[in-house]
């Protein structure tokens, strides 16, 4: 599988492999180039592509590298296939916040109709001497609250249902 990078909204699939002395950058449609990079000082260096050499400046910010080359700036963002390819499959079953263990509802934090983001606390439960915050697994709107404070429930019971935002 190629690495995928996003530059200005366009997706580029590439692969970097070792050749005898340098690196070979393989792009789609069987194009490839011999590349080398020498860092000259912090955030600066010389990039060589097929024999022609250019000075560049760069800043690394998480998965994005900002590159300054020939008077222009580019934001090159690494697209992690583990994230990019997982989106559809993973969110499908996550719109109901369920009880991780049997227990009692301490308080319900969510309000029907409220817009929540992933990580928002929708309810607090108590079980086996511990208080646990139940959080929204995704962004959405609170559609239904299945329990009230003081109510006891079994493991896997539905606590709060979120609807996906129409977008």
């Amino acid at each position, binding site marked *: 599988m190629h690495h995928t990078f996003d530059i200005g909204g366009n997706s580029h699939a590439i692969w970097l492999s070792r050749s005898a002395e340098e690196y070979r950058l393989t792009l789609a449609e069987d194009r490839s180039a011999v590349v080398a990079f020498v860092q000259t000082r912090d955030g600066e260096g010389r990039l060589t592509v097929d024999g022609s050499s250019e000075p560049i400046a760069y800043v690394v910010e998480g998965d994005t590298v900002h590159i300054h080359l020939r008077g222009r700036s580019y934001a090159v963002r690494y697209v992690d296939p583990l*994230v990019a390819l997982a989106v559809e499959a993973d969110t499908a079953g996550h719109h109901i916040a369920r009880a*991780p263990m049997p227990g009692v509802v301490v308080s319900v934090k969510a309000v029907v109709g409220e817009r929540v983001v992933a990580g928002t606390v929708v309810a607090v439960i108590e079980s086996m001497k511990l208080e646990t915050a139940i959080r929204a697994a995704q962004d959405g709107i609170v559609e239904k609250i299945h329990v009230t404070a003081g109510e006891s429930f079994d493991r896997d019971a539905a606590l709060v249902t979120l609807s996906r935002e129409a977008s």
Partner: protein
Amino acid sequence: MQRVSSLIDTRDDDYRANDLHNRRLASELKERQKVARHVRPERDRERLRRQNKMFVRDRIEALLDPGTPFLELSTLAGNMAYDGEVPGAAQVTGIGIVSGKEVIVHADDASVKGGAWYPLSVKKIVRALDIAIENHLPVVHLCDSAGGFLPLQAEFFADRYFAGRIFRNQSILSKMGVPQVAVVMGHCTAGGAYIPALSDYNIIVRGTGAIFLGGPPLVKAATGEEVTVEELGGADMHTSVSGTGDYAASSELHAIAIARDIVERFRRPEKAGVDWIEPEPPAYDPEQLYGIIPRDPRVQFDMREVIARMVDGSRFHEYQPRYGQSLICGFARVHGYQIGILANNGVLFNDSSLKGAHFIQLCDKNRTPLLFLQNITGFMVGREYERRGITKDGAKLIMAVAGASVPKFTVVCNGSYGAGTYGMSGRAFDPRFMFSWPQSQVSVMGAEQAAGVLTDVKLRQLARSGLQLSEQETAAIRDPVLEDYRRQSSAYYATSEIWDDGILDPVDTRNAIGISLSAALNAPIASPHYGVFRM
């Protein structure tokens, strides 16, 4: 490997309150450590100066390679024993770098009761030597002890893990080919005389160092013979006449220089082959741990947030993320070493126990050391769970934990209760190293529950003899029990009793685990083999 995406909001009120609370706990820890390390009555300091002796901390500083880390172990041992008068149990132990080699340092602290061995001193020395055995680490002993503290001899002399174990462990190390150097900086009398004698190399400081089974007063009393310290067991006599000593040094610093020269010649051990790549710091700031750990220990938190602030690049490959979710299992790297992490996100159920046992075997098979992050109230109780075999599944987890051949490391992050302590590689399961966080608690059950049970028993006894107690009288029974129980469940009590290898400021955990991992790999890892899993 995918980066953990944190859901923490650092502007949140709870986060800020936690941050304040945990920073206070961390600075309290640092303060208590500072006192245990450096604060001594002036008369003790004065006595050292008069004897021309260096303070133990200065000796260790001179011994270690400058600028290298020293992972001190059980700094607060004895902090809740002996009325707090024996800081560090009068011993300093730790892992440090001497002449480029990882070694265990064991040093008597003569500024505390003349370096007398209390029961916890003996426990601390035995533990340091156990670490040397388990991890094949050479040992440097800096000896300066007045001998055993006689009034408490029944608590440190005769039993299996008492003082004799020190000398047994020294002999086993020698048999294993793990070298030891002893530097005699004070009088090594009686049992203490065997530490240098059982070391492969020893150095005696001329004038202050001496080795003898009985000192001059004892000899006088026993046989009437009058003899000076130098004649009886001084550096020159032992290195030229008896052969008990190997090298005579003209000063403590000279002795330390000789010790460093000896360690330099030790064969560099072949490290056990585990996967290692270039390390990277966590993507999330470890200081955010202060805001994540709830100030109320009863409040649950997502251990992924903790993992994200401990591992390389905050990258975590979670194994079976949808199954047995109350136990998080997965792979990550700490300082470049691949490790398998088991972390509690709630009580242990049947499925989480099975998942843990399975994951441990998986890691054992591919030679991946295990890190346990404890926050566990126990295994789930109730009719349904017993019928599903919760005890049987817990037994599988315990079997896997006890049987794993790869090195294990345990950090008590918050609660550690009941059988959960066992299933998560508690002290009894021989993790190579075990650390606690300042607010963590260890006990057979929570303080409130235990005090309730104990009070109930008492009330029923009284009821049988026809007595009824008022609320106030009940409280009078209950409160002291609760108070005692809380005290004995605290991290400071656990570390006082050496149930762990020290309390860590949470932000230091990553480095402590890194040093521990590197040390653990000095010993080869046996092939996986297990007992019978009850299916």
